[in-house]
């Protein structure tokens, strides 16, 4: 089902979605765009290339409260935080970011114990994917083509959106998406020409150029396993790294977290908070032992986790080539170059 709306009316669409539930959409903030819970439909702004932070926070918030309790009260008075999620619309996620949700699903839902918070948030959400603007060149950091992701790849979205001149075309990808599109009375029916434009756009998206190399998951996994003990290699690629957490926090597929208790005046919350394998104390044990004291060990862990361990454990590379880690790295470390180097090494 294809629908359309004029981009100038985007705030009306936003308002319609807000009537149905919670809307998360790109908003222009001081330093760039980010997905934000929309309070005022006028905030929604589709004039962006990609957001600073990935939209993973929609399902994996930086801070997720688990339990509320009072320190002075009996243990059974503690209460589990109920999510009670309204329908949530993630509006305008780029194809590479949408891909990341599937990768995270494997970890949080499809293997071992199910993470109930991720699952509930995922189930409550309707994803409006949004194709990159094929008229404009990719940014130098991006390399999603390498991971086989197109600039207009609808996979993973419930509804996929493409810009056509002053219009926004919305095509349903899943039944869930179709249902929503039907309900949104504000939308106009897409015409045959729109349908054609849409289909061609999707096709053209596959050709869209980002940085690209031939990367076979098995090959890179093997390569990285072989390289593991090559301290010189890891020292060299990590020599600039300052062990901050930017790359992991902006990354759509990084899921490490910490569980902590915070209390204030006897009222406590147990919650999870994002953590980063790049932090020096990430693996610090209570005994004082830390298996990853060196910068190179931590960067090695991150690269391996994405391109080797994840492949071994779950069968897919845990990277979507969005380029955020490179773009926001204070010292310009480029994961793409490291993978390139690794393949050559």
């Amino acid at each position, binding site marked *: 089902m294809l629908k359309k709306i004029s981009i100038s009316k985007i705030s009306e669409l936003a308002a319609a979605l807000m009537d149905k539930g919670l809307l998360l959409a790109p908003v222009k903030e001081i330093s760039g765009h980010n997905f934000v819970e929309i309070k005022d439909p006028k905030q929604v702004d589709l004039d962006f290339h990609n957001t600073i932070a990935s939209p993973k926070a929609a399902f994996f918030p930086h801070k997720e409260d688990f339990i509320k309790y009072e320190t002075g009260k009996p243990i059974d008075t503690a209460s589990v935080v109920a999510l009670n999620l309204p329908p949530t619309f993630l509006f305008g996620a780029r194809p590479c970011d949408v891909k990341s949700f599937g990768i995270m699903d494997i970890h949080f839902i499809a293997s071992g114990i199910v993470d109930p918070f991720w699952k509930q948030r995922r189930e409550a959400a309707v994803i409006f994917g949004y194709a990159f603007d094929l008229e404009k060149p990719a940014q130098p950091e991006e390399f999603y083509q390498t991971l086989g992701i197109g600039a207009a790849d609808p996979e993973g979205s419930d509804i996929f959106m493409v810009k056509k001149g002053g219009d926004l075309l919305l095509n349903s990808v899943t039944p869930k998406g179709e249902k929503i599109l039907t309900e949104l009375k504000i939308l106009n029916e897409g015409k045959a020409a729109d349908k054609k434009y849409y289909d061609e756009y999707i096709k053209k998206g596959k050709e869209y150029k980002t940085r690209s190399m031939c990367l076979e998951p098995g090959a890179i996994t093997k390569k990285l396993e072989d390289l593991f003990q090559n301290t010189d290699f890891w020292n060299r690629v990590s020599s600039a790294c300052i062990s*901050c957490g930017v790359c992991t926090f902006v990354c759509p597929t990084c899921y490490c977290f910490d569980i902590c208790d915070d209390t204030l005046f006897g009222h406590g919350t147990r919650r999870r908070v994002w953590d980063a394998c790049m932090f020096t104390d990430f693996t610090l044990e209570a005994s004082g032992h830390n298996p990853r004291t060196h910068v190179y060990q931590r960067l090695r862990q991150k690269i391996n986790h994405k391109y080797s361990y994840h492949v071994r454990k779950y069968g897919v590379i845990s990277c979507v080539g969005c380029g955020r880690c490179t773009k926001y790295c204070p010292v*310009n470390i480029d994961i793409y170059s490291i993978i390139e180097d690794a393949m050559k090494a």
Partner: protein
Amino acid sequence: MTDFRQIENNLKKEAKRLLEAGEVAVVLAYGRGYDEKHPMPFAAKTIADVESLVFNEYCNFNMASYLMRYPWGTKIAIAAKAADSRAIIQLVQEEKVRREDLVILGIPAYGMKNQKTNEVVDSKTTGGLYNPVIYDILLGEEIHGQKIVSPYEVLAEYEAMDKEERWAFWKSQMDKCIRCYACRKACPMCYCDPCFIDQNKPRWADKAPQSPGNMMYHLTRFHHLAGRCIDCGECSRACPVDIPLYLFHKKVAKECEEMFGQAAGMKLEDKPVLVDFRVEDSDKILE
């Protein structure tokens, strides 16, 4: 404009000479990144590495941050712009590095640019200096005749705000913080391991990126860097959400300079002002 090419050539020449002669084990400077606009901090350890050295207007990184990765006694050559040189002085004062271990390759530079915005950043950082405060070898000509800007000029706008406005400004800035800690990691003076904010005993603030923890982290960090911040602006440059931390650090630096008559990282023999006192310090500073 600074002749970046000349400096790059001199950097390569000196690096090669020092490494060849075995005078240093490593040259801390800048290397090629994934494109021209994105050079990287680079540790050249071999003659072959020298070819990868670059210098251009985007080489903002404060190389002094990397000094502490090497044990005392390692001979290190370090490329030092004005701010880097001040950081080195401050680190020597704090006994984190030893002057005798260093060969300082001074770089006079103006026209340094922010890679994200392409804006010229000289006047906002480096404490208004173009020439390194201390060096052993100068890789370009000293810069004279440029307009001397007060490093504190940019503060005027914020100082003029009334307190409500200023609070609103900082609150909105701090609320953006995602606690990635790039600021402290990019800072040559933030060598604490563990940082107080990572401590569990005591837990100074919660780990979640929400207002109280963010405030506690940043306000305390401003205090920790009081009289030590050498105004390189790396904290702000590193910040993925562009919090202008440098403004706050600058303000604290200005106050310290006014109260204690000493700017950070200017003289090897100084003592950091907050671990020092003078009997004649005035009680006025508390008003």
